[in-house]
């Protein structure tokens, strides 16, 4: 019975450390543009299901006043986040067809699945891009 206080201490310690740990997410994006008009757009964000060995790279601070729901934050600041992530590698594919002097084009831009972490600090959400270690 004497061990109980120690167990409680360790339980509290692990719970606290779990709360403070930053969650890792995987983010990907794809947009298709046909004849200069966006026809489809997909934006995926999911929690990483396993621990990744990566080191932090670039950071982006977003004003997230009293908001902790990441989905809502991403919805509000989607352009800013996409511009930030596009800077570090955007896959571009283009198919253009000119048939009897009539042109049509299809361009798709893709941000490949990227690991990010999100921290909340003083009404700011700090998004950190991760680079996987070999």
């Amino acid at each position: 019975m004497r061990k109980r206080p120690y167990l409680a201490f360790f339980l509290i310690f692990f719970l606290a450390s779990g709360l403070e740990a930053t969650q890792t997410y995987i983010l990907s994006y794809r947009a298709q543009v046909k004849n200069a008009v966006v026809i489809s757009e997909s934006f995926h964000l999911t929690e990483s299901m396993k621990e990744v060995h990566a080191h932090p790279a670039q950071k982006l601070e977003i004003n997230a006043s009293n908001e902790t729901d990441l989905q809502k934050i991403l919805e509000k600041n989607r352009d800013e986040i996409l511009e930030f992530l596009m800077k570090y590698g955007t896959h571009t594919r283009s198919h253009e067809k000119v048939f009897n002097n009539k042109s049509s084009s299809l361009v798709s831009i893709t941000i490949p699945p990227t690991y990010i972490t999100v921290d909340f600090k003083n009404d700011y959400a700090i998004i950190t891009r991760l680079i996987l270690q070999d």
Partner: protein
Amino acid sequence: MKKILVISALLSAVLMAEEAPAQEVFEADQPNVVVVEPVVVTVPAPAPEPAAHEGQVCPQDMQEPPHSAKRPDSYKKIRINVTGQGVAPTMTSSPAQAYALAKRAAIADAYRLLAEKVKGVRIEGSDKIKNMMVQRSEVRTFVDAVIAEAEIIETVFQDGLCEVEMELNIDPKQWHSILASR
């Protein structure tokens, strides 16, 4: 040289020996005034050193950049500027959505233009001619590239058309071998 030093040392010893009694005598109402003739010891001046180059700056040196900054013209950064254009779809719920979608289309177009310039375009074409008349003409172009470090410089939205100016800086030191092999 040694002789001069020895003479000067002897003279200074003599002077020091005579100085103390002279002071005492001087204090006692100066009965005997000892006049010491000045001794001039000539010491050859050291040979003048050549002027230090570091301290002197000539105007020509000032105009030239430091050695590390000297680069041949081929190592200057390559800057590629493109302007992508996008149009908002007709069925949009709000002007904000129209703007966002037009901007997205313009960004995609700008990325395509950058990819065309950096990676190149694959072109396939075919013409079908029958009885001396073109019946079918088709040209297909493909671009496939990954663009990194491109930055949006300016975004202009006017009359339903969005124009995005993008810039890409390429360091030839890093990419010269790849670009030169193409």
